[in-house]
């Protein structure tokens, strides 16, 4: 099997030359940028709002030992069953047990990146349960048996033609290139699933410590239906989702919508504080909240990069990242792609295996600039590089830098090397860009400029 780094390199090479992909992504994100800028401008001060959001998240994460138990206690007080899962496997087992105990046949799911992270659908399907994704984008990628392309826009890499073809093949609908008709096909297909599903599974955007509620942000209404109709509801969330106070949402909801999708507010922002309460007419009889660690506490222990846990998964850093925009979401091979994925995946899944993502960056800092909670993303990429080199130094790099240092410290020797380089340059032209080229790693897709006939130093000597 190929290593993840080989796969990353190969797929990047192919997809960066795919013009169709490029156009699709540029158009989609171009539309997003216009809307985002318009909504940002409506803020009295976007930069102060970002600072405030960063500080509130800092407070939440750095006092997680208080806020998380508060959140749990208040949820439990109103009849919610809270489960703790140190690993992905435990989380899957907990959910499988709930579903089995219900003797459930069909499960409806609304979008949850944590569920992708623990590969929940595979586990449920493997046990013979039917799981249907209800978010339109997720439903489309589920029918294609693919991972989401983007944490907010799962089907951004597909055209309406692709989707029409897919629906015709999988659902037997008539072909159409009208996005509205396509949406209605999915709406009809999913309506019945809601009414008959025994269990609904959701993620969460925030967990409110003060009131013991989870907050779900969505545009379609699918999460609301998931939380309203099935008898049992399960929410799976990472332990870092906590916000101290309910009114913090007055800041976070507009910021999430603006940074994430260029909306002033997402269509539905709903808070759930338990199963159906006495006197209420609908909602689930049982409500389970599964809290997932899955190495988040390791990231928490790294004080330098702890702020990566402030992430509200808005996707803004993906949208502005030149790497993401060129290689696309699937190339990363991770649940969380883009800059935030490159930062946290080494913590969640191993530094040595995933460090290449931190090297695949121009360190332009666009991500840090875009992040509504001011995560120091591009510095974290640098820190991952440093940490990986400390942990496992590369012999070739070490030797190269030793030689370079040796030469550069000796002006006489350096002058000789320069002379030699000029001498051999015409020969290099013959192999430049081919596999015989010693600088192939560079020249296969980039130019190597020719050295000028005379160096500045020589010129200065003559003309000063």
């Amino acid at each position: 099997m190929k290593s993840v780094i080989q796969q990353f390199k190969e797929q990047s090479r192919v997809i960066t030359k795919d013009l169709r992909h490029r156009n699709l992504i540029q158009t989609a994100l171009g539309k997003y940028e216009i809307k985002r800028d318009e909504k940002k401008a409506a803020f009295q001060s976007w930069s102060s709002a970002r600072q405030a959001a960063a500080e509130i998240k800092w407070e939440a994460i750095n006092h997680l030992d208080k806020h998380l138990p508060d959140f749990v206690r208040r949820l439990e007080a109103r009849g919610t069953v809270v489960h703790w899962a140190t690993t992905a496997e435990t989380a899957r087992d907990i959910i499988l047990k709930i579903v089995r105990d219900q003797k459930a046949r069909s499960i409806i799911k609304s979008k949850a990146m944590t569920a992708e992270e623990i590969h929940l659908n595979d586990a449920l399907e493997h046990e013979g349960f039917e799981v249907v994704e209800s978010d339109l984008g997720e439903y489309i990628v589920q029918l294609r048996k693919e991972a989401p392309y983007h944490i907010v826009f799962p089907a951004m890499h597909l055209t309406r033609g692709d989707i029409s073809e897919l629906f015709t093949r999988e659902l037997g609908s008539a072909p159409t290139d009208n996005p509205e008709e396509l949406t209605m096909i999915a709406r009809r297909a999913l309506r019945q699933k809601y009414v008959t599903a025994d269990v609904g599974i959701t993620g969460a955007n925030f967990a409110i410590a003060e009131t013991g509620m989870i907050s779900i942000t969505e545009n379609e209404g699918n999460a609301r239906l998931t939380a309203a109709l099935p008898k049992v509801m399960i929410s799976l969330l990472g332990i870092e989702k906590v916000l101290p106070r309910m009114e913090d949402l007055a800041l976070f909801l507009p910021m999430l919508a603006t940074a994430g999708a260029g909306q002033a507010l997402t269509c539905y922002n709903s808070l759930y504080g338990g199963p159906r309460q006495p006197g209420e007419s609908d909602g689930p009889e049982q409500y389970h909240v599964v809290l997932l660690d899955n190495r988040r506490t390791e990231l928490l222990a790294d004080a330098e990069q702890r702020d990566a846990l402030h992430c509200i998964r808005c996707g803004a850093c993906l949208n502005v990242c030149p790497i993401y925009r060129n290689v696309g979401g699937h190339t990363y091979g991770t649940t969380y792609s883009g800059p935030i994925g490159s930062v946290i995946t080494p913590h969640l899944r191993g530094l040595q295996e995933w460090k290449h993502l931190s090297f695949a960056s121009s360190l332009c800092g666009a991500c840090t600039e875009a992040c509504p909670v001011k995560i120091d993303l591009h510095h974290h990429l640098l820190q991952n590089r440093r940490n990986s080199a400390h942990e496992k130094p590369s012999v070739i790099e070490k030797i190269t830098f030793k030689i370079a240092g040796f030469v550069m410290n000796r002006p006489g020797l350096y002058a000789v090397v320069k002379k030699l380089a000029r001498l051999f340059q015409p020969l290099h032209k013959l192999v430049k860009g081919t596999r015989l080229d010693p600088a192939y790693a560079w020249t296969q897709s980039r130019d190597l400029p020719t050295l000028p006939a005379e160096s500045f130093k020589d010129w200065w000597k003559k003309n000063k």
Partner: protein
Amino acid sequence: MSDREQILGRIREALTVTAPKPGAHGTGAGHHGPAVSPGPSSTRQWLPLVGDSFEERVALFRTNSAELKTDFQLLNSREELTAALIKLRDADGWKRIGSHQGELTQVACDALGLPVCRTDATYDVRELEQCDAGVTECDALIAQTGSVLVTSRSAGGRALSVLPPHHVVVVRREKLLPDLQAGFELLKSKYAANYPSFISLITGPSRTGDIERILVLGAHGPKKLTILCL
């Protein structure tokens, strides 16, 4: 050791080292300079501006509604409310509606004269699914964002405002609040002793942009949202 104890133990251990406070990227200040923590109420001054008078707030709500494709109507009398409802009923040929107990919902049900699926007590989901509209009240309207604030207690449960294809909100103008902050303050003062299990800010009819980022209304929830404000 249980997973709970393990996780809490790891959290406590991790937090023995303090993380640097968030700095001020892009604002000229140093990366890790000292930061003054804002009280939650002070965030209002950075969010989109809302006017002070009722007229300004209605105007803002109207502008937001237009952008969201919400049908917002400010009405001056019960007669106008009745007429507006009848117009909606006849335009879309409603045959059956869902609704719940309430002063204004009662006015609406009387005006419409259609069979009503009530969601105050246990009801049949399939019956609600067959309804042409869900008529509800709400806790507040939010001028800043053009949102309707509902709870399971004020709007007939969780499903009534999302399952039928048309959501109609009947509300008195006193319920118009300036911003989200005011909305959360209201929730606190009204319910803090015992919150409803479901609270939602509804901002426009259900929508999706999942196909080529093109806006389509009525993804899974209502295709239409009408706010009749008395």
